[in-house]
């Protein structure tokens, strides 16, 4: 089936529009593409008007939960005499999620401009970027871009007007998925173990150093400058009524052309596959995640689900980070879920019992099933443990750990049973590798881009 719409109509590069230009990570190139125009506009407006504009644009958080960004900013108390902080969540570690890292690598200034606008709006004079540590090329570009922005006067003394300074500190994490959870991130940024805090109080009231703090995802903040520059009506003309705007969809796995596809919210996986060459040649879709491993998995029944907050929610999953990890029929679902569960067990911060103990036991059971040593009753036990984690854990990591288990058992119970009944895994892992069908694999996958 081919899409009625040509690819150009379905895609809407905004954040990615300059990535094929010369050295798009530099201030010069960014400005040639209208960079820092949004900030100029913002600084002519009253801070509250900026908040109102972002709120009316309908922009929702791109870090996973989809919370309205303007509303989050509005929660910051004013005239409270305390410093306010903006903390950008660049911890990107949810399995499958790979949008903020390429964005920051290609165009770090879009984040810095967004941070300046957000800081103006919430009256913040010191903002932070919490970047996961394992991405040194991105750290290098962020450090350089911040230095450029200081030199150009977008940051530093009087950056937001007379007597209104703005500093940005780039902070590298040290390897811990849980530090993407916003309150754990704040503890980590304060120099502690990254463990989630009890809420309330919410960060807007007592965040970094117990001061009012906004924590936003990279892509959320980077989406703000175009809204200032082009207006909320333009933004709302893209996407759907309740999920307006554009976003980065990250396609990965057994597809012909993995990559970043920026499109209006509400595109479907079928449309994306149609315009990008589909599942890898000779294979068919088996299961996929709409927004990372913590979002319940979908199958080919869900190809036409609109990938916006409401559409995916109504179909029983979550839009999450729009990390579309695609697996074909060669993939053993038990193996996939086992590996994700090992991830959650490894990354569980240990603060609460259901998650710390539950993920451990899930791994034991799953490994046994995968190895063909499962026994009748194991699947019920899996569901029982998952049920004891889901909704009963201290933070959403626990809920995320339960998602792949429950959803895979819902769609592929027979495959689990086959492992138990046949005392073996019926799949050949070699068939799922990218080199399995080497002859038909396209060179493109390894092609390298160099822009001098």
């Amino acid at each position, binding site marked *: 089936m081919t899409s009625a719409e040509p690819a150009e109509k379905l895609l809407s590069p905004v954040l990615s529009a300059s990535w094929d230009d010369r050295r798009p990570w530099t201030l010069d190139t960014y400005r040639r593409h209208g960079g820092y125009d949004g900030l100029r506009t913002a600084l002519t407006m009253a801070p509250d008007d900026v908040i109102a504009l972002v709120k009316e644009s309908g922009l929702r958080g791109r870090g996973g939960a989809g919370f309205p960004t303007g509303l989050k900013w509005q929660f910051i108390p004013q005239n409270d005499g305390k410093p306010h902080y903006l903390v950008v969540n660049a911890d990107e570690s949810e399995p499958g999620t790979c949008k903020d890292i390429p964005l920051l690598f290609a165009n770090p200034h879009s984040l810095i401009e967004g941070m300046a606008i957000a800081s103006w709006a919430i009256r913040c004079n010191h903002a932070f970027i919490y970047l996961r540590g394992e*991405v*040194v090329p991105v750290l290098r570009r962020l450090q350089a871009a911040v230095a450029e922005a200081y030199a150009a006067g977008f940051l530093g003394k009087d950056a937001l007007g007379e007597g209104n300074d703005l500093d940005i500190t780039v902070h590298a994490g040290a390897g811990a998925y849980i530090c993407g959870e916003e309150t754990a991130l704040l503890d980590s940024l*304060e120099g502690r173990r990254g463990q989630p805090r009890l809420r309330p109080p919410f960060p807007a009231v007592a965040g970094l150093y117990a001061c009012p703090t906004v924590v936003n995802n990279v892509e959320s903040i980077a989406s703000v400058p175009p809204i200032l520059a082009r207006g909320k009506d333009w933004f709302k003309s893209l996407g759907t009524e309740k999920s307006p705007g554009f976003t980065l969809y990250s396609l990965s*796995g057994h597809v012909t052309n993995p990559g*970043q596809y920026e499109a209006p919210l509400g595109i479907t996986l079928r449309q994306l596959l149609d315009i990008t060459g589909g599942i890898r040649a000779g294979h068919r879709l088996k299961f996929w995640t709409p927004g990372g491993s913590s979002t319940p998995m979908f199958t080919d029944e869900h190809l036409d689900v609109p990938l916006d907050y409401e559409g995916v929610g109504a179909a029983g999953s979550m839009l999450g980070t729009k990390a579309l990890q695609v697996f074909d029929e060669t993939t053993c679902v038990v193996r*996939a879920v086992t590996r994700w569960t090992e991830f959650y067990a490894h990354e569980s911060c240990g603060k609460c019992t259901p998650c710390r103990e539950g993920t451990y036991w899930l791994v034991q059971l799953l490994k046994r099933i995968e190895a063909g040593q499962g026994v009748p009753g194991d699947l019920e036990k899996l569901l029982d443990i998952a049920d004891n984690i889901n909704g009963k854990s201290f933070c959403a990591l626990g809920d995320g750990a339960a998602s792949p288990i429950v959803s895979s058992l819902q769609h592929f119970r027979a495959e689990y049973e086959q492992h138990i009944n046949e005392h073996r895994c019926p799949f050949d892992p*070699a068939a799922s590798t990218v080199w399995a069908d080497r002859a038909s694999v396209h060179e493109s996958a390894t092609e*390298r*881009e160099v822009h001098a």
Partner: protein
Amino acid sequence: MSSTELGLPALPAKPYPPDVERRLAADAAELIARYPHSRSALLPLLHLVQAEEGFVSATGIRFCAEQLDLTTAEVTAVATFYTMYRRRPAGEYHVGVCTNTLCAVLGGDQIFDELKQHLEIENNRTTEDGAVSIERIECNAACDYAPVVMVNWEFFDNQTPESARELVDRLRAGEEVRPTRGAKLCSFKETSRILAGFADEREGAVDESGAGGAPSLAGLRLAKGEALPGTPGAKVVSPRQEGTEA
């Protein structure tokens, strides 16, 4: 046998030699000044001591504690929470193979197994010459380039068992190796210094390797009317021009 194994409290760690201590203290002061509260500099300081020794030693922990007015127990509690802080020396080149689900399924598992065999070392161990250590790592936000290998936290995208073996051979032979995304490799210690928050001073390091590979640019190209590889082309491939209808 260490004193803890005998049930005795560990002796306080030795400090750094005075000249090292002075140099690191100056670096630490610069990092601490970037934060409203000094303790926020703890993660950067742990990267800093790792840049000195290749891992976080008891001496390094003592140093961090003294700079921030914390106890060594407080610093240890933090250092052991984060996977990037190593408790034993890393190789000059620390090789991470992503074995989270997507990379694992696309071939990361095989890459890791073959590397282990090839180097004759286990997970989290270093070759005898000290050149290469290997580690299974979690999703590194590069799934569209799977299977992914990191060396000193620079990206080596779209790897195969062959390419990964060749990579570690070249590292051990001391040859110059360039990542697909990132700058020419520096040592693990030098990398840790960047992580601590000090800019990479090497000429051109920031600009190396372009804006990203084909996956990063796929959507933009498609939107501009270029045909993606392996798709039935209604469009003509026209690099960096407006789309041309066939």
